[in-house]
């Protein structure tokens, strides 16, 4: 079957009333948690992971994807009106969006971000439709050594390259790997690091760590440090763009999409780089540079928003074709698949073809739903921001309990969640990145299995990683990714030195 038929088949599955309902609920919840400060898509999906015990895989993946997507739409609303970005991806939106809102153009900012998200999301979904099967076909040829190198690349980029400090990124990554070690070893069945506690035999659930770090950690941090921080809510006005604003938004959306998509597909994690790059480019190209940072420029909202959504959509390519998550939410989605005993990877397109194509089809549908939910109905969502902070965060704790306790009915997990929450407070206070913890704990056991399988193939020789050309190529890429930014920084510093002397 060619791609077109597969996609039509996907639409047939995604458009059944039940699946449409799941997509819609996902979009609604996603937009809601995107608007609310304090909750992100990763932790929301994590809290809802217990439903994987009851709901069938296709429906729950459609549901989770709706949440992931919806949070990106909703997050920009909060960035524009409240200047507290809900997600890292909408941080840049806050730069210009909040300025626009302050000078009375919140409506235009909200419109360009919602429509831009729709344009970027739809184009990116088309690209996923076209490219994911090709990547999957190629990925079937990869063996354990190549997989291990790909995972090593993901580890390197997510911890050492993206963050501000290599040592803090590495500490976070290896904490995650340490958490992933607890329980039974996948290959030999050896028990590791359970300390005689029976609850640890099955390993530590990702729900527990994600909810502890993000939801409970956020709640504790707010109580400890944020009590006196005042928030100022901008008034919204009508959601409308003038003809000139349309003209200024279009090229920015397209450029943002072109920039965001490739960054989402490579295991370089995160939406921060493409959104910041897009902001920089729009600022350089704009015919109205005087508006940037003063009254707010519409390009500075349109470009990064599009880049954000394109990157988020593109993370599905490595997730579905290689089984490698490049963002925290993708990591949680991977563990949802694991709960069903489905191995994400190139075989997924053959073994679970219906699931994959229904998921992709649901993205097209979800984008339309989200446009409707976010443009005419934005006024409803803004009302959520009126919930007082104490009740909001205390309420989050109740849902955290549902997720963590619902997973395996153990009160022990709730104490552990509190402990992880306290670690989360420390990490936030001392500026440790949290994404590497989650990626490390989920990808760690997979990477270990691939490494040991690769070494078995090589009969115990590490040479196996350099003897195979693909694996060697990836290894060189890992080294380049590690060294290049440092060399560039060094060169810049030397150039500065020379300039200072000369």
């Amino acid at each position, binding site marked *: 079957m060619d791609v077109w038929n597969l996609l039509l088949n996907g639409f047939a599955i995604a458009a059944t009333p039940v699946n449409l309902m799941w997509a819609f609920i996902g979009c609604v919840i996603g937009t809601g948690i995107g608007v609310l400060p304090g909750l992100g898509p990763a932790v929301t999906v994590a809290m809802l992971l217990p439903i994987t015990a009851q709901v069938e895989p296709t429906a729950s993946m459609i549901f989770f994807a709706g949440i992931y997507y919806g949070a990106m739409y909703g997050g920009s609303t909060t960035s524009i009106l409240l200047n507290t970005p809900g997600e890292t991806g909408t941080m840049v939106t806050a730069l210009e969006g909040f300025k626009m809102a302050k000078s009375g153009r919140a409506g235009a900012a909200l419109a360009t971000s919602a429509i831009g998200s729709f344009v970027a999301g739809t184009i990116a979904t088309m690209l996923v439709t076209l490219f994911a099967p090709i990547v999957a076909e190629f990925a079937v040829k990869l063996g354990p050594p190549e997989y291990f190198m790909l995972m090593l690349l993901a580890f390197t980029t997510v911890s050492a390259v993206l963050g501000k400090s290599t040592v803090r990124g590495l500490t976070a990554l290896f904490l995650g790997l340490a958490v992933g070690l607890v329980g039974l070893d996948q290959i030999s069945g050896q028990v590791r690091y359970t300390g005689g506690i029976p609850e640890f035999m099955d390993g530590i659930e990702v729900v527990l760590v994600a909810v502890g770090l993000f939801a409970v950690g956020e709640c504790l941090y707010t109580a400890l440090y944020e009590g*006196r921080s005042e928030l100022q809510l901008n008034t919204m006005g009508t959601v409308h763009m003038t003809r000139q604003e349309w003209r200024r938004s279009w090229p920015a959306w397209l450029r943002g999409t072109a920039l965001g998509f490739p960054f989402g597909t490579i295991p370089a994690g995160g939406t921060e780089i493409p959104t910041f790059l897009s902001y920089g480019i729009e600022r350089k190209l704009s015919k109205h540079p005087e508006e940037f940072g003063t009254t707010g420029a519409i390009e500075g909202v349109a470009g990064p928003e599009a880049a954000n959504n394109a990157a988020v959509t593109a993370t599905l390519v490595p997730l579905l074709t290689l089984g490698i998550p490049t963002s925290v939410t993708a990591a949680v989605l991977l563990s949802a698949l694991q709960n069903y005993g489905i191995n994400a990877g190139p075989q997924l397109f053959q073994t679970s073809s219906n699931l994959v194509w229904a998921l992709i089809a649901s993205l097209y549908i979800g984008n339309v739903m989200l446009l409707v939910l976010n443009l005419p109905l934005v006024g409803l969502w803004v009302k959520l921001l009126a919930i007082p902070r104490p009740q909001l965060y205390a309420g989050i*704790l109740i849902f955290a309990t549902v997720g963590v306790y619902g997973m395996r009915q153990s009160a022990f997990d709730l104490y552990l969640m509190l402990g992880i929450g306290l670690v989360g407070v420390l990490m936030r206070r001392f500026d440790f990145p949290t994404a590497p913890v989650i990626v490390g704990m989920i990808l760690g056991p997979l990477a270990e299995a691939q490494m040991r399988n690769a070494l078995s193939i090589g009969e115990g020789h590490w040479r196996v990683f350099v003897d195979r050309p693909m694996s060697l190529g990836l290894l060189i890429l890992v080294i380049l990714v590690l060294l290049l930014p440092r060399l560039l920084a060094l060169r810049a510093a030397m150039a500065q030195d020379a300039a200072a002397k000369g």
Partner: protein
Amino acid sequence: MSSPATLHQTFVGMGALLVGAVLAFGATGIPANAGYAGVGPNFLPWVVAVVLVVCGAWLIWEARTGGYRALETPSGAARGDWAALAWVAAGVAVNAMLINRAGFILACTACFMLAVRGLRLSEGKPHGGPKGLVIDFVTGFLIAGPAFWMFTKVLAINLPGLTASGWL
């Protein structure tokens, strides 16, 4: 000449070092049985332990030589409101203690009441006396109740009730 920041950062580094040391101690108890692969189940534990010890030492060194590099100033107040933190943490702990005895709804309502009290304290607002307690109880119940019914009745997730009726 150690400022509080230096001290705190050193402690965090020592924490990482300690985790690494504990992992290393644990790794000594894991057999190697490597088989064909040449590395066994104890290989990654040793790698993780050694890297964490190195990272911990590196963090301590950074802390003692001018503080963590490229550190972003954390958001919020400079000094923590520890009483507020204690209330919220107590909420989660009470929830864990009660959930198997009093059921999901009541345990979560208690957690909500304690957490709201802590968060309101951190904002410097009064807790509202007995009337406030009643309002918090009702609010918490109105969140925990529907959440319980939705997850147990609609999604068939197993959450504990106080009675066998399935409604409380």
